[in-house]
């Protein structure tokens, strides 16, 4: 008799197992390729079976993502992915639900669902590819485009004040906010890991270059010459250090962040130590993006996990409430539901 060796040891999945047979159709050089690759690379490490994953997207370049994943997936309608994902997760909390969206999809047409998914905190992962432009509709400004940007719909410059996604998410009570960037694969992988581990809605903003319609908006954060001066990689429990030779830091002067040169009596111990659980400071980190526009208070852009907290998730609470009430009241039989409380008989 032959012994079957099937199903004895779990076979370690690889990135290939998460790759569908569909040809990827983003423009050459698009930042989305890197994001897809990083997700496919880290998913096998995160445990869980392939069939337990559901990727939900809306509309836009980023939203083609589910077609390229060899998991379950839904490419839905513009802006509504968070609402659909909430339904998926609430109906079956066992699934690993990921939303893939863009700045236009999530913050413009899907703005309402965005803030509500944050406050309800279903245990899902939400990645927003922020390229500060509408790509799929061929180059109109988005709710994260800088004021003044010249696009097809703003030939004389945009007059719209952009959103600050981090600030918006924190204001809407996100339980996790992190920022990463397409051209730093290692960092992105680490952030995705953290997001996956988080219990609750994990919101990850990925700066993504759109070479066709908004090329280079994030180059200062990726090019050798500027990267070290412009990026601030934050880590829990570590001081806020940046600069060409890690020669600068950020200190708190009361409630005011100030940039200091290290040395000359200023040591790392004097710096602001990052605390992921401090929401007030997370708001300050979120503000860096806006402060940076002003040359006098130019701040580096923070990357990493700004904030996380453990708080109840709607999908779990929904299931728990049902369990509690079931335990207390017991199921009502269908016959009892049909008859209701008060009946009468006609003979």
């Amino acid at each position, binding site marked *: 008799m032959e012994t079957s060796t099937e199903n004895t040891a779990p076979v370690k999945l690889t990135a290939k197992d998460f790759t569908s047979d569909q040809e990827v159709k983003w423009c050459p050089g698009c930042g989305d390729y890197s994001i897809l690759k990083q997700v496919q690379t880290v998913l096998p490490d995160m445990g869980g079976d392939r069939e337990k994953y559901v990727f939900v997207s809306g509309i836009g370049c980023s939203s083609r993502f589910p077609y390229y994943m060899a998991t379950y997936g*839904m490419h839905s309608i513009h802006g509504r992915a968070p609402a659909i994902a909430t339904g998926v997760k609430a109906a079956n909390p066992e699934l690993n639900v990921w939303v893939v969206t863009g700045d236009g999809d999530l913050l413009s047409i899907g703005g309402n669902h965005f803030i509500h998914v944050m406050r309800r905190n279903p245990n899902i992962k939400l990645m927003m590819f922020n390229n500060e432009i509408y790509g799929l509709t061929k180059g109109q400004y988005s709710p994260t485009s800088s004021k003044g940007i010249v696009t097809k719909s703003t030939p004389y410059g945009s007059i719209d004040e952009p959103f600050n996604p981090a600030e918006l998410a924190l204001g809407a009570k996100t339980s996790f906010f992190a920022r990463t960037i397409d051209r730093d694969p290692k960092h992105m992988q680490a952030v995705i890991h953290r997001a996956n581990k988080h219990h609750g809605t994990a919101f990850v903003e990925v700066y993504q270059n759109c070479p066709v319609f908004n090329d280079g908006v994030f180059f200062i954060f990726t090019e050798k010459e500027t990267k070290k001066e412009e990026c601030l990689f934050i880590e829990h429990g570590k001081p806020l250090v940046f600069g060409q030779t890690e020669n600068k830091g950020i200190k708190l002067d009361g409630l005011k962040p100030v940039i200091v040169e290290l040395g000359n009596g200023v040591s790392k111990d004097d710096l602001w130590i990052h605390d992921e659980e401090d929401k007030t400071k997370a708001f300050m980190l979120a503000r860096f993006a806006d402060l940076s526009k002003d040359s006098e208070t130019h701040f580096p852009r923070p990357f990493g996990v700004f904030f996380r907290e453990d708080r109840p998730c709607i999908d779990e609470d929904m299931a728990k409430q049902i369990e509690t009430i079931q335990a207390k009241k017991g199921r009502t039989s269908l016959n009892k539901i*049909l008859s209701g409380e008060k009946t009468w008989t006609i003979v």
Partner: protein
Amino acid sequence: METILDSTPQRTTIIKETDSVVVRFSGDSGDGMQLTGMQFTDTSAFLGQDISTFPEFPAEIRAPAGTLAGVSGFQVHFGSKEIYTPGDMYDVLVVMNSAALKSDLPRLRKGGIIVANVAGFDSKNLKLAGYPEGAKSPLEDGTLENYQVYKIDVTKHTKDALKDSGLGMKEVDRCKNMFVLGVLFWMFDKSMEYTIKNLQEKFGKKPELLNANLIALKSGWNYGDNTEIFTTRYKISAAKLPAGVYRNISGNQGLAIGLIAAAEKAGVPLFLGSYPITPASDVLHELSKYKANGVKTFQAEDEIAAICSAIGAAYTGSLGVTTTSGPGMALKAEAMGLAVIFEIPLLICDIQRGGPSTGLPTKTEQADLLMAMHGRHGEAPLPIVAAATPADCFDAVYEAVRIALEHMTPVIFLSDGYIANGAEPWRFPTEDQLPPINLKFTTTPNSENGKFLPYKRDDRGVRPWVKPGTKGLEHRIGGLEKQNETGNVSYDSKNHELMVKLRAEKIEKIADSIPLAKPDSGKDKAKVLVLGWGSTYGAIKTAVLELLDEGVVDVAHVHLRHMNPFPKNLGQILHGYDKVLIPEMNTGQLRQLIRAKYLVPAEGFSKVQGMPFTTEEIKEKITELHNSK
């Protein structure tokens, strides 16, 4: 039949036997008229009478007290014969103030009874109701000389009865509806037992309020019994309804438990994603109570999120449902299109109200039929099922769920404010009497080469339903046009045309599983056919039965439940009649569909007043058409 009941030396009370009566309770929103009407209705039902009710709410939540905008009414038609409508005109009108009289007098039949709370007719109330300064009360100025008017100072009597109750002015005032109910119970010789039991349940924990309500109720009864103002009491026997066990049910209740029943029979969890909207919110309220049965309800941030969450739940293998009214339907249109191209089961319940826009939120209308039929971009057909009566909401939604689950399609269920809030006795089924819903999730690949093809269809054109979590069948679905069978994105023009055709055929084939049309009353062939749909059922049925009874007009009635696809034999049926009349609470939407599809010159009869048809209106129209050349 009249009998002298009570012939004490002082007075003579006549007992009149009659087969049906319409009573309208009308007052300010704060007067508790809905509750009073419901107690009166339930008591009638328990006495074995057939009933039909029509609650009418003011559109404003807190319209100024005493004004016309604040009038809230509850109409109940009860009798010893079969009752199909809440009645065209009232026999008895109970008014708590002058605004109520002003608003409802036009529909009191000549010679009818008015029971008026005189305290609601002082100069302040007259002014609030819009009577000119210094005008005499209509109770005194002769306008009501064609009616029997009973003037009772309900406010004062209630106060007197409760002077020792220890309750504050406001609470005492709140009891006056029970006084009125007591008077009406006396008048119709109905037992107070049921209401007493109900009050005990309701106020069990507040003995002083219970006591006050009981005193007010009994004082009302005693008032009827002791004073000499009433000369007549009415007696209505039990109706000869089919034997069985009954309960009282409103349309929205029927809808809610129909969903629970269908989900349980199909063996899938029930998920409702909904956003509050009149007159559909009650379904959300009702289903939220059934947590112990595993029902998940989700009050979404908006109408779009409501349907989208239901789509998400449906994707996981739940019965996904969303409930709404016209304005919400408009917002859900894009997501409905998504469900059409996904080809997943979903139920969209539209409790219609007057439109367009906010329109008449608390009034009824049937003007969403064409939106249900066509209100999506692209070729996006889906089945439509419409309920005819409050109890029929149960059967119709059960059928709608069956179609959605068995045919993998979103289905629109149409009801309206009239039957959603109205109630009638219902000989409810038991679990094993419910028809089966056949449903199977796919768990293994469906092609020879071991691949899974999400859009490979069976002979009904139905694709497989796979729950995420099923190993080996991972696949993606999306809103982009998909290649036949594989479901992969395809921009091929011929493929698109094929997919449009396949989706349409799938809906057409549902006609194989629905009952053929047949006359509800009347014969297969006649001079006039009245073709109805939805909540016009009661008025049409009563009109046609009365005409058939009179024997002068050659008429029949066919009522549609399946609005898309239509029953297969509908064309043939229509051709059996010389003339087709389609009464609708819109400007002719079904008529348009019928004319276009069957090329019959159907006549329309339209009413868009936020009010249901009266039997009289329909009778007149039928007769007119019957007698025209």
